[in-house]
Protein backbone atom coordinates (compact mmCIF):
# COMPACT_ATOMS: atom_id res chain seq x y z
CA UNK A 1 0.00 0.00 0.00
CA UNK A 2 1.25 3.49 -0.79
CA UNK A 3 0.56 6.51 1.34
CA UNK A 4 -1.60 8.16 -1.26
CA UNK A 5 -3.92 5.16 -1.13
CA UNK A 6 -4.20 5.10 2.63
CA UNK A 7 -7.11 7.47 2.97
CA UNK A 8 -9.29 5.32 0.74
CA UNK A 9 -9.21 2.63 3.40
CA UNK A 10 -10.93 4.85 5.97
CA UNK A 11 -14.69 5.11 5.43
CA UNK A 12 -15.00 8.16 7.68
CA UNK A 13 -13.11 10.37 5.23
CA UNK A 14 -16.04 10.20 2.88
CA UNK A 15 -18.01 12.16 5.44
CA UNK A 16 -15.14 14.33 6.66
CA UNK A 17 -14.07 15.29 3.15
CA UNK A 18 -17.64 16.14 2.19
CA UNK A 19 -17.99 18.35 5.24
CA UNK A 20 -14.54 19.85 4.81
CA UNK A 21 -13.24 18.52 8.12
CA UNK A 22 -9.52 17.98 8.69
CA UNK A 23 -8.87 15.57 11.56
CA UNK A 24 -5.69 16.53 13.44
CA UNK A 25 -6.24 14.79 16.77
CA UNK A 26 -4.75 11.35 16.24
CA UNK A 27 -2.63 11.54 19.36
CA UNK A 28 -5.95 11.40 21.19
CA UNK A 29 -7.54 8.68 19.12
CA UNK A 30 -7.22 7.49 15.53
CA UNK A 31 -9.66 6.75 12.74
CA UNK A 32 -10.32 3.11 11.74
CA UNK A 33 -9.69 1.53 8.32
CA UNK A 34 -12.36 -0.79 6.90
CA UNK A 35 -10.02 -3.72 7.55
CA UNK A 36 -10.49 -3.12 11.27
CA UNK A 37 -14.21 -2.41 11.04
CA UNK A 38 -14.71 -5.56 8.98
CA UNK A 39 -12.74 -7.67 11.45
CA UNK A 40 -15.08 -6.53 14.22
CA UNK A 41 -18.30 -7.06 12.27
CA UNK A 42 -17.05 -10.41 10.95
CA UNK A 43 -16.70 -11.54 14.53
CA UNK A 44 -20.25 -10.43 15.33
CA UNK A 45 -21.74 -11.95 12.22
CA UNK A 46 -19.83 -15.22 11.98
CA UNK A 47 -17.92 -16.20 15.11
CA UNK A 48 -19.48 -14.54 18.14
CA UNK A 49 -18.87 -16.61 21.24
CA UNK A 50 -16.92 -16.37 24.47
CA UNK A 51 -13.28 -17.46 24.55
CA UNK A 52 -11.10 -19.96 26.46
CA UNK A 53 -13.70 -22.42 27.64
CA UNK A 54 -16.01 -23.39 24.81
CA UNK A 55 -15.42 -26.88 23.42
CA UNK A 56 -17.94 -26.34 20.63
CA UNK A 57 -17.15 -24.98 17.18
CA UNK A 58 -18.06 -21.32 17.63
CA UNK A 59 -16.19 -21.19 20.91
CA UNK A 60 -13.13 -22.78 19.35
CA UNK A 61 -13.20 -20.33 16.44
CA UNK A 62 -13.46 -17.35 18.77
CA UNK A 63 -10.68 -18.65 20.98
CA UNK A 64 -8.41 -19.27 18.00
CA UNK A 65 -9.06 -15.77 16.66
CA UNK A 66 -8.41 -14.27 20.07
CA UNK A 67 -5.20 -16.25 20.59
CA UNK A 68 -4.02 -15.38 17.12
CA UNK A 69 -4.58 -11.69 17.85
CA UNK A 70 -2.40 -11.92 20.92
CA UNK A 71 0.36 -13.65 19.00
CA UNK A 72 0.15 -11.17 16.14
CA UNK A 73 0.30 -8.10 18.37
CA UNK A 74 3.17 -9.68 20.28
CA UNK A 75 5.16 -10.19 17.08
CA UNK A 76 4.59 -6.56 16.15
CA UNK A 77 6.75 -5.46 19.09
CA UNK A 78 9.07 -8.46 19.15
CA UNK A 79 7.38 -10.31 22.01
CA UNK A 80 6.01 -13.80 22.64
CA UNK A 81 2.28 -14.27 23.03
CA UNK A 82 2.83 -15.26 26.67
CA UNK A 83 4.19 -11.77 27.24
CA UNK A 84 1.11 -9.89 26.02
CA UNK A 85 -1.60 -9.07 28.57
CA UNK A 86 -4.81 -7.61 27.16
CA UNK A 87 -6.06 -4.60 29.10
CA UNK A 88 -8.48 -1.75 28.31
CA UNK A 89 -5.82 0.82 27.49
CA UNK A 90 -2.42 2.21 28.42
CA UNK A 91 -3.90 3.64 31.59
CA UNK A 92 -5.06 0.26 32.84
CA UNK A 93 -1.71 -1.30 31.97
CA UNK A 94 0.08 1.23 34.16
CA UNK A 95 -2.48 0.86 36.96
CA UNK A 96 -2.05 -2.91 36.81
CA UNK A 97 1.65 -2.38 37.45
CA UNK A 98 1.09 0.20 40.16
CA UNK A 99 -1.11 -2.27 42.03
CA UNK A 100 0.64 -5.54 41.26
CA UNK A 101 4.31 -4.58 41.03
CA UNK A 102 3.54 -1.79 43.48
CA UNK A 103 2.44 -4.27 46.14
CA UNK A 104 5.99 -5.62 46.26
CA UNK A 105 7.49 -2.19 47.15
CA UNK A 106 8.10 -0.94 50.66
CA UNK A 107 8.29 2.39 52.45
CA UNK A 108 11.13 4.56 51.18
CA UNK A 109 11.42 2.83 47.81
CA UNK A 110 11.72 5.29 44.97
CA UNK A 111 10.02 5.61 41.60
CA UNK A 112 11.39 7.91 38.91
CA UNK A 113 9.05 9.61 36.44
CA UNK A 114 9.40 12.70 34.26
CA UNK A 115 7.65 16.03 33.99
CA UNK A 116 6.47 15.21 30.47
CA UNK A 117 4.47 12.12 31.48
CA UNK A 118 0.82 11.70 30.68
CA UNK A 119 -1.40 11.65 33.78
CA UNK A 120 -1.74 7.91 33.41
CA UNK A 121 1.95 7.53 34.17
CA UNK A 122 1.73 9.85 37.18
CA UNK A 123 -1.54 9.41 39.05
CA UNK A 124 -1.28 5.61 39.53
CA UNK A 125 2.08 6.13 41.19
CA UNK A 126 0.73 8.95 43.35
CA UNK A 127 -2.00 6.57 44.47
CA UNK A 128 0.62 3.92 45.20
CA UNK A 129 2.52 6.48 47.26
CA UNK A 130 -0.58 6.80 49.46
CA UNK A 131 -0.74 3.06 49.95
CA UNK A 132 2.93 2.24 50.35
CA UNK A 133 4.74 5.44 51.38
CA UNK A 134 7.09 5.20 48.42
CA UNK A 135 8.77 8.33 47.03
CA UNK A 136 8.30 9.79 43.57
CA UNK A 137 11.10 11.67 41.82
CA UNK A 138 10.74 13.62 38.58
CA UNK A 139 13.16 14.10 35.75
CA UNK A 140 12.59 17.76 34.95
CA UNK A 141 13.59 18.07 31.37
CA UNK A 142 13.29 21.09 29.09
CA UNK A 143 10.53 21.07 26.53
CA UNK A 144 12.92 21.54 23.63
CA UNK A 145 14.92 18.36 23.95
CA UNK A 146 14.24 14.69 24.72
CA UNK A 147 15.06 13.15 28.09
CA UNK A 148 18.66 11.99 28.13
CA UNK A 149 20.43 9.38 30.27
CA UNK A 150 22.22 12.30 31.96
CA UNK A 151 18.86 13.64 33.14
CA UNK A 152 18.15 10.35 34.84
CA UNK A 153 21.48 9.51 36.46
CA UNK A 154 21.44 12.10 39.28
CA UNK A 155 18.08 10.80 40.49
CA UNK A 156 19.17 7.18 40.77
CA UNK A 157 19.79 5.92 44.28
CA UNK A 158 20.02 2.59 46.02
CA UNK A 159 16.29 2.97 46.70
CA UNK A 160 15.31 3.28 43.05
CA UNK A 161 12.94 0.41 42.29
CA UNK A 162 11.07 1.62 39.24
CA UNK A 163 11.83 3.96 36.35
CA UNK A 164 8.69 4.67 34.34
CA UNK A 165 8.97 6.95 31.31
CA UNK A 166 7.19 7.65 28.08
CA UNK A 167 8.96 6.79 24.84
CA UNK A 168 7.25 9.72 23.17
CA UNK A 169 5.63 12.70 24.84
CA UNK A 170 2.04 13.30 23.80
CA UNK A 171 2.36 17.05 24.26
CA UNK A 172 5.87 17.81 23.01
CA UNK A 173 6.32 15.02 20.47
CA UNK A 174 9.81 14.46 21.82
CA UNK A 175 11.07 10.91 21.31
CA UNK A 176 13.13 9.58 24.19
CA UNK A 177 15.80 6.99 23.44
CA UNK A 178 14.88 4.30 25.95
CA UNK A 179 17.73 1.84 25.53
CA UNK A 180 20.46 3.79 27.40
CA UNK A 181 17.91 4.87 30.00
CA UNK A 182 16.89 1.27 30.50
CA UNK A 183 20.53 0.36 31.03
CA UNK A 184 20.87 2.91 33.82
CA UNK A 185 17.69 1.64 35.45
CA UNK A 186 18.81 -1.98 35.23
CA UNK A 187 22.30 -1.20 36.51
CA UNK A 188 20.60 0.30 39.54
CA UNK A 189 18.52 -2.86 39.95
CA UNK A 190 15.31 -1.05 39.00
CA UNK A 191 12.47 -2.17 36.76
CA UNK A 192 12.10 -0.23 33.50
CA UNK A 193 8.52 0.59 32.46
CA UNK A 194 7.80 2.32 29.17
CA UNK A 195 4.65 4.19 28.21
CA UNK A 196 4.42 3.35 24.53
CA UNK A 197 1.03 4.98 23.87
CA UNK A 198 2.60 7.47 21.44
CA UNK A 199 5.51 5.40 20.17
CA UNK A 200 4.17 1.94 19.28
CA UNK A 201 1.64 3.46 16.83
CA UNK A 202 4.15 5.73 15.12
CA UNK A 203 7.57 4.11 14.81
CA UNK A 204 9.27 0.71 14.81
CA UNK A 205 9.32 -0.50 18.42
CA UNK A 206 11.02 -3.66 19.57
CA UNK A 207 10.97 -4.56 23.24
CA UNK A 208 14.17 -6.57 22.98
CA UNK A 209 16.04 -3.67 21.39
CA UNK A 210 14.93 -1.14 23.96
CA UNK A 211 15.31 -3.75 26.70
CA UNK A 212 12.41 -2.63 28.86
CA UNK A 213 10.68 -4.85 31.40
CA UNK A 214 7.19 -3.56 30.64
CA UNK A 215 5.61 -1.63 27.80
CA UNK A 216 2.07 -0.21 27.73
CA UNK A 217 0.08 0.83 24.65
CA UNK A 218 -3.50 1.36 23.43
CA UNK A 219 -5.29 -0.08 20.39
CA UNK A 220 -7.40 3.00 19.73
CA UNK A 221 -4.30 5.12 19.14
CA UNK A 222 -3.10 2.83 16.35
CA UNK A 223 -6.16 2.35 14.12
CA UNK A 224 -7.73 -0.25 16.41
CA UNK A 225 -10.92 -0.26 18.49
CA UNK A 226 -11.16 1.52 21.81
CA UNK A 227 -11.45 -0.54 25.00
CA UNK A 228 -8.43 -2.68 24.15
CA UNK A 229 -4.75 -2.21 24.91
CA UNK A 230 -1.71 -4.22 25.88
CA UNK A 231 0.72 -4.60 28.67
CA UNK A 232 3.87 -6.28 27.45
CA UNK A 233 5.94 -7.82 30.23
CA UNK A 234 9.12 -9.88 30.03
CA UNK A 235 8.15 -13.49 30.63
CA UNK A 236 10.06 -13.78 33.92
CA UNK A 237 8.85 -10.38 35.07
CA UNK A 238 5.21 -11.28 34.46
CA UNK A 239 5.61 -14.63 36.14
CA UNK A 240 6.80 -12.97 39.32
CA UNK A 241 3.98 -10.42 39.50
CA UNK A 242 1.03 -11.08 41.79
CA UNK A 243 -2.38 -10.92 40.07
CA UNK A 244 -4.27 -7.62 39.78
CA UNK A 245 -7.97 -8.37 39.35
CA UNK A 246 -9.60 -11.64 40.38
CA UNK A 247 -12.43 -13.57 38.78
CA UNK A 248 -13.19 -15.84 35.87
CA UNK A 249 -10.47 -17.01 33.44
CA UNK A 250 -7.52 -15.89 35.59
CA UNK A 251 -7.85 -18.79 38.03
CA UNK A 252 -6.76 -22.40 38.03
CA UNK A 253 -8.85 -23.48 41.00
CA UNK A 254 -11.22 -21.76 43.39
CA UNK A 255 -12.54 -23.07 46.69
CA UNK A 256 -14.36 -21.12 49.36
CA UNK A 257 -11.06 -20.94 51.18
CA UNK A 258 -8.72 -19.95 48.39
CA UNK A 259 -7.77 -19.66 44.74
CA UNK A 260 -4.75 -20.42 42.60
CA UNK A 261 -3.77 -18.56 39.43
CA UNK A 262 -3.71 -19.51 35.78
CA UNK A 263 -0.45 -19.16 33.87
CA UNK A 264 0.60 -15.85 32.33
CA UNK A 265 -0.78 -13.93 30.56
CA UNK A 266 -4.33 -15.08 31.47
CA UNK A 267 -3.48 -14.67 35.14
CA UNK A 268 -3.89 -10.92 34.54
CA UNK A 269 -7.08 -11.09 32.48
CA UNK A 270 -10.04 -11.50 34.80
CA UNK A 271 -13.48 -11.88 33.29
CA UNK A 272 -14.65 -11.85 29.70
CA UNK A 273 -12.12 -9.84 27.69
CA UNK A 274 -12.84 -7.38 24.89
CA UNK A 275 -12.83 -10.13 22.28
CA UNK A 276 -13.78 -8.19 19.16
CA UNK A 277 -11.52 -5.41 20.42
CA UNK A 278 -8.53 -7.75 20.41
CA UNK A 279 -9.45 -9.06 16.97
CA UNK A 280 -9.84 -5.53 15.60
CA UNK A 281 -6.56 -4.51 17.21
CA UNK A 282 -4.82 -7.39 15.47
CA UNK A 283 -6.30 -6.25 12.13
CA UNK A 284 -4.94 -2.76 12.84
CA UNK A 285 -1.50 -4.22 13.44
CA UNK A 286 -1.72 -6.05 10.11
CA UNK A 287 -2.62 -2.79 8.42
CA UNK A 288 0.35 -0.97 9.96
CA UNK A 289 2.74 -3.83 9.24
CA UNK A 290 1.58 -3.77 5.67
CA UNK A 291 2.41 -0.06 5.44
CA UNK A 292 5.71 -0.68 7.21
CA UNK A 293 6.51 1.07 10.47
CA UNK A 294 9.59 2.76 9.03
CA UNK A 295 7.43 4.25 6.31
CA UNK A 296 4.90 5.34 8.91
CA UNK A 297 7.66 7.05 10.83
CA UNK A 298 9.03 8.69 7.68
CA UNK A 299 5.62 9.91 6.66
CA UNK A 300 5.13 11.63 10.00
CA UNK A 301 8.67 12.97 10.04
CA UNK A 302 7.94 14.64 6.73
CA UNK A 303 4.72 16.14 8.05
CA UNK A 304 6.30 17.57 11.18
CA UNK A 305 9.27 18.90 9.18
CA UNK A 306 6.83 20.56 6.84
CA UNK A 307 4.92 21.98 9.81
CA UNK A 308 8.00 23.54 11.36
CA UNK A 309 8.97 24.97 7.99
CA UNK A 310 5.48 26.44 7.52
CA UNK A 311 5.69 27.88 10.99
CA UNK A 312 8.92 29.66 10.17
CA UNK A 313 7.73 30.88 6.80
CA UNK A 314 4.36 32.08 7.97
CA UNK A 315 5.94 34.26 10.62
CA UNK A 316 2.76 34.58 12.67
CA UNK A 317 3.05 37.13 15.45
CA UNK A 318 2.84 35.62 18.92
CA UNK A 319 2.91 32.03 17.61
CA UNK A 320 4.97 29.99 20.05
CA UNK A 321 5.44 26.24 19.68
CA UNK A 322 6.93 23.58 21.92
CA UNK A 323 9.04 20.45 21.58
CA UNK A 324 12.44 19.70 20.10
CA UNK A 325 13.16 21.02 16.62
CA UNK A 326 15.42 18.07 15.88
CA UNK A 327 13.27 16.16 13.41
CA UNK A 328 15.05 12.90 14.15
CA UNK A 329 13.73 13.05 17.70
CA UNK A 330 10.34 14.52 16.95
CA UNK A 331 7.04 12.73 16.36
CA UNK A 332 4.09 14.15 14.42
CA UNK A 333 2.84 16.24 17.31
CA UNK A 334 2.72 20.03 17.24
CA UNK A 335 1.64 21.93 20.37
CA UNK A 336 1.54 25.72 20.19
CA UNK A 337 0.01 28.92 21.49
CA UNK A 338 -0.97 32.30 20.10
CA UNK A 339 0.39 34.33 22.98
CA UNK A 340 1.10 32.56 26.22
CA UNK A 341 -1.59 32.86 28.86
CA UNK A 342 0.33 32.30 32.05
CA UNK A 343 -0.65 29.48 34.34
CA UNK A 344 -2.98 30.24 37.20
CA UNK A 345 -1.07 31.01 40.35
CA UNK A 346 -3.06 31.34 43.53
CA UNK A 347 -0.35 33.34 45.23
CA UNK A 348 -0.18 35.96 42.51
CA UNK A 349 -3.63 36.55 41.17
CA UNK A 350 -3.40 39.69 39.12
CA UNK A 351 -6.61 41.62 38.77
CA UNK A 352 -6.46 41.84 35.04
CA UNK A 353 -8.01 40.02 32.16
CA UNK A 354 -4.64 38.71 31.15
CA UNK A 355 -5.47 37.17 27.81
CA UNK A 356 -6.99 40.43 26.58
CA UNK A 357 -4.06 42.39 27.90
CA UNK A 358 -1.40 40.26 26.24
CA UNK A 359 -3.40 39.69 23.08
CA UNK A 360 -3.41 35.93 23.54
CA UNK A 361 -6.00 33.56 22.15
CA UNK A 362 -7.02 30.92 24.64
CA UNK A 363 -6.50 27.41 23.19
CA UNK A 364 -10.16 26.58 23.69
CA UNK A 365 -11.13 29.55 21.59
CA UNK A 366 -8.51 28.75 19.04
CA UNK A 367 -9.67 25.21 18.52
CA UNK A 368 -13.34 26.19 18.41
CA UNK A 369 -12.47 28.79 15.81
CA UNK A 370 -10.24 26.47 13.80
CA UNK A 371 -13.16 24.04 13.73
CA UNK A 372 -15.74 26.66 12.77
CA UNK A 373 -13.65 28.42 10.15
CA UNK A 374 -11.62 25.76 8.39
CA UNK A 375 -13.00 22.53 9.82
CA UNK A 376 -9.63 21.87 11.40
CA UNK A 377 -10.02 19.60 14.43
CA UNK A 378 -7.44 20.44 17.09
CA UNK A 379 -7.24 19.50 20.72
CA UNK A 380 -6.74 22.18 23.33
CA UNK A 381 -6.09 22.13 27.04
CA UNK A 382 -3.52 20.31 29.13
CA UNK A 383 -3.55 17.11 27.02
CA UNK A 384 -3.49 15.09 30.25
CA UNK A 385 -0.02 16.45 30.89
CA UNK A 386 -0.64 19.15 33.46
CA UNK A 387 2.84 19.03 34.99
CA UNK A 388 4.51 19.75 31.63
CA UNK A 389 1.87 22.40 30.85
CA UNK A 390 2.73 24.00 34.16
CA UNK A 391 6.46 23.75 33.43
CA UNK A 392 5.84 25.47 30.10
CA UNK A 393 4.44 28.26 32.24
CA UNK A 394 1.14 28.32 30.41
CA UNK A 395 -2.42 27.45 31.29
CA UNK A 396 -2.99 25.37 28.16
CA UNK A 397 -1.80 24.68 24.63
CA UNK A 398 -3.40 23.81 21.30
CA UNK A 399 -2.19 20.63 19.64
CA UNK A 400 -2.22 19.21 16.13
CA UNK A 401 -1.19 15.58 15.74
CA UNK A 402 -0.73 13.51 12.61
CA UNK A 403 -1.09 9.93 11.48
CA UNK A 404 -0.87 7.80 8.36
CA UNK A 405 -3.87 9.44 6.69
CA UNK A 406 -2.75 13.05 7.09
CA UNK A 407 -1.23 15.03 4.25
CA UNK A 408 0.66 18.26 3.56
CA UNK A 409 -2.64 19.83 2.56
CA UNK A 410 -3.86 19.19 6.11
CA UNK A 411 -0.87 21.12 7.43
CA UNK A 412 -1.62 23.96 5.02
CA UNK A 413 -5.18 24.08 6.33
CA UNK A 414 -3.88 24.16 9.89
CA UNK A 415 -2.01 27.36 9.21
CA UNK A 416 -4.95 28.85 7.32
CA UNK A 417 -7.11 28.12 10.33
CA UNK A 418 -4.64 29.66 12.74
CA UNK A 419 -4.52 32.82 10.67
CA UNK A 420 -8.30 32.96 10.35
CA UNK A 421 -8.65 32.57 14.10
CA UNK A 422 -6.29 35.42 14.72
CA UNK A 423 -8.24 37.58 12.30
CA UNK A 424 -11.44 36.77 14.14
CA UNK A 425 -10.20 36.93 17.70
CA UNK A 426 -7.02 38.88 17.48
CA UNK A 427 -6.59 42.29 18.99
Amino acid sequence: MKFDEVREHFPIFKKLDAEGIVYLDSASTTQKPFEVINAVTDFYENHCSNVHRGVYRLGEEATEMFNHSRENIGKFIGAKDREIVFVRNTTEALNLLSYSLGSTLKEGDEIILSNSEHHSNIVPWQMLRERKKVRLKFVNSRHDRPISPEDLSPLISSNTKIVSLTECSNILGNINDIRPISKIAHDAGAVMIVDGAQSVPHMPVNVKDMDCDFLAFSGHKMLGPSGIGCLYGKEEALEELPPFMGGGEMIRTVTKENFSCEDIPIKFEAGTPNIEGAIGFSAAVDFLRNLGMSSVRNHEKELIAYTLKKEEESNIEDLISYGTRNIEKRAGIYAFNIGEIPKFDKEHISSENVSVKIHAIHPHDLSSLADRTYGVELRSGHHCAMPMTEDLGVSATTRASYYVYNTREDVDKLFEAIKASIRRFGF
Partner: protein
Amino acid sequence: MTGDDYINSEILDEHFRTPRNFGRITGHDVEIIETNPTCGDTIVLDMKFKGDILVDIKYITRGCSISTAAASILSENLMGKTREEIEHTTKEDVLANIGLKLGPARERCALISYDAVQKGIKNHFKRK
Protein backbone atom coordinates in the same frame (compact mmCIF):
# COMPACT_ATOMS: atom_id res chain seq x y z
CA MET B 1 -22.26 24.77 19.04
CA THR B 2 -23.16 26.11 15.63
CA GLY B 3 -20.24 27.84 14.07
CA ASP B 4 -21.83 31.12 13.16
CA ASP B 5 -23.32 31.69 16.58
CA TYR B 6 -19.98 31.41 18.16
CA ILE B 7 -17.96 33.29 15.62
CA ASN B 8 -20.32 36.22 15.43
CA SER B 9 -21.71 36.43 18.95
CA GLU B 10 -21.55 40.01 20.10
CA ILE B 11 -22.54 39.22 23.67
CA LEU B 12 -19.63 36.83 23.92
CA ASP B 13 -17.21 39.35 22.47
CA GLU B 14 -18.44 42.21 24.58
CA HIS B 15 -18.30 40.36 27.88
CA PHE B 16 -15.00 38.71 27.09
CA ARG B 17 -13.21 41.89 26.10
CA THR B 18 -14.65 44.02 28.89
CA PRO B 19 -15.81 41.60 31.56
CA ARG B 20 -18.04 43.09 34.26
CA ASN B 21 -17.16 42.70 37.94
CA PHE B 22 -13.70 41.42 37.12
CA GLY B 23 -11.32 41.49 40.08
CA ARG B 24 -11.29 40.56 43.74
CA ILE B 25 -13.31 41.64 46.78
CA THR B 26 -11.29 42.64 49.78
CA GLY B 27 -13.20 41.39 52.79
CA HIS B 28 -15.20 38.77 50.89
CA ASP B 29 -17.38 36.37 52.83
CA VAL B 30 -16.45 33.44 50.67
CA GLU B 31 -13.77 32.62 48.13
CA ILE B 32 -13.99 29.67 45.76
CA ILE B 33 -11.34 28.37 43.42
CA GLU B 34 -12.76 26.11 40.75
CA THR B 35 -10.92 24.27 38.01
CA ASN B 36 -12.30 22.97 34.75
CA PRO B 37 -10.85 19.46 34.46
CA THR B 38 -11.38 19.54 30.71
CA CYS B 39 -8.63 22.08 30.24
CA GLY B 40 -7.22 23.04 33.61
CA ASP B 41 -8.69 26.55 33.45
CA THR B 42 -9.31 28.14 36.79
CA ILE B 43 -11.53 30.79 38.31
CA VAL B 44 -11.30 32.56 41.67
CA LEU B 45 -14.68 33.82 42.70
CA ASP B 46 -15.39 36.06 45.69
CA MET B 47 -18.82 36.83 47.13
CA LYS B 48 -20.06 39.18 49.83
CA PHE B 49 -23.48 38.90 51.46
CA LYS B 50 -25.70 41.12 53.58
CA GLY B 51 -27.96 38.62 55.29
CA ASP B 52 -29.37 36.56 52.45
CA ILE B 53 -28.56 39.09 49.76
CA LEU B 54 -25.54 38.89 47.50
CA VAL B 55 -24.19 42.43 47.65
CA ASP B 56 -20.97 41.88 45.75
CA ILE B 57 -19.54 39.28 43.41
CA LYS B 58 -16.21 39.42 41.64
CA TYR B 59 -13.96 36.88 39.93
CA ILE B 60 -10.70 36.44 38.14
CA THR B 61 -10.48 33.88 35.35
CA ARG B 62 -7.58 32.57 33.44
CA GLY B 63 -9.82 31.05 30.88
CA CYS B 64 -11.27 31.17 27.42
CA SER B 65 -13.73 33.68 26.05
CA ILE B 66 -16.71 31.57 26.99
CA SER B 67 -15.72 31.04 30.60
CA THR B 68 -14.88 34.72 31.03
CA ALA B 69 -18.02 35.97 29.33
CA ALA B 70 -20.17 33.47 31.21
CA ALA B 71 -18.74 34.65 34.52
CA SER B 72 -19.33 38.25 33.53
CA ILE B 73 -22.96 37.64 32.53
CA LEU B 74 -23.60 35.53 35.60
CA SER B 75 -22.15 38.13 37.94
CA GLU B 76 -24.42 40.79 36.46
CA ASN B 77 -27.45 38.57 36.78
CA LEU B 78 -26.83 37.48 40.35
CA MET B 79 -25.78 40.77 41.87
CA GLY B 80 -28.39 41.78 44.44
CA LYS B 81 -30.23 38.47 44.34
CA THR B 82 -31.19 36.48 47.45
CA ARG B 83 -29.64 33.20 48.45
CA GLU B 84 -32.80 31.40 47.45
CA GLU B 85 -32.98 33.02 44.05
CA ILE B 86 -29.38 32.09 43.41
CA GLU B 87 -29.91 28.54 44.56
CA HIS B 88 -32.79 28.21 42.15
CA THR B 89 -30.80 29.41 39.18
CA THR B 90 -30.27 26.40 36.94
CA LYS B 91 -27.56 25.43 34.52
CA GLU B 92 -30.12 25.80 31.79
CA ASP B 93 -30.72 29.45 32.81
CA VAL B 94 -27.01 30.16 32.62
CA LEU B 95 -26.67 28.56 29.20
CA ALA B 96 -29.76 30.40 27.95
CA ASN B 97 -28.30 33.72 29.06
CA ILE B 98 -25.19 33.12 27.01
CA GLY B 99 -27.43 32.35 24.10
CA LEU B 100 -25.09 29.98 22.29
CA LYS B 101 -25.62 26.32 21.51
CA LEU B 102 -22.56 24.79 23.12
CA GLY B 103 -21.12 21.29 22.87
CA PRO B 104 -20.47 19.26 26.01
CA ALA B 105 -16.86 20.38 26.48
CA ARG B 106 -17.54 24.10 26.00
CA GLU B 107 -20.63 23.82 28.22
CA ARG B 108 -18.22 23.11 31.00
CA CYS B 109 -16.39 26.35 30.20
CA ALA B 110 -19.69 28.20 30.48
CA LEU B 111 -20.61 26.56 33.77
CA ILE B 112 -17.42 26.82 35.76
CA SER B 113 -18.46 30.17 37.29
CA TYR B 114 -21.91 28.77 38.02
CA ASP B 115 -20.39 25.76 39.80
CA ALA B 116 -18.20 28.12 41.81
CA VAL B 117 -21.21 30.25 42.83
CA GLN B 118 -23.23 27.23 43.95
CA LYS B 119 -20.31 25.88 45.93
CA GLY B 120 -19.80 29.32 47.47
CA ILE B 121 -23.44 29.56 48.55
CA LYS B 122 -23.24 26.11 50.10
CA ASN B 123 -20.04 26.89 52.00
CA HIS B 124 -21.19 30.29 53.20
CA PHE B 125 -24.61 29.33 54.49
CA LYS B 126 -23.51 26.00 55.91
CA ARG B 127 -20.89 27.70 58.02
CA LYS B 128 -23.41 29.75 59.94
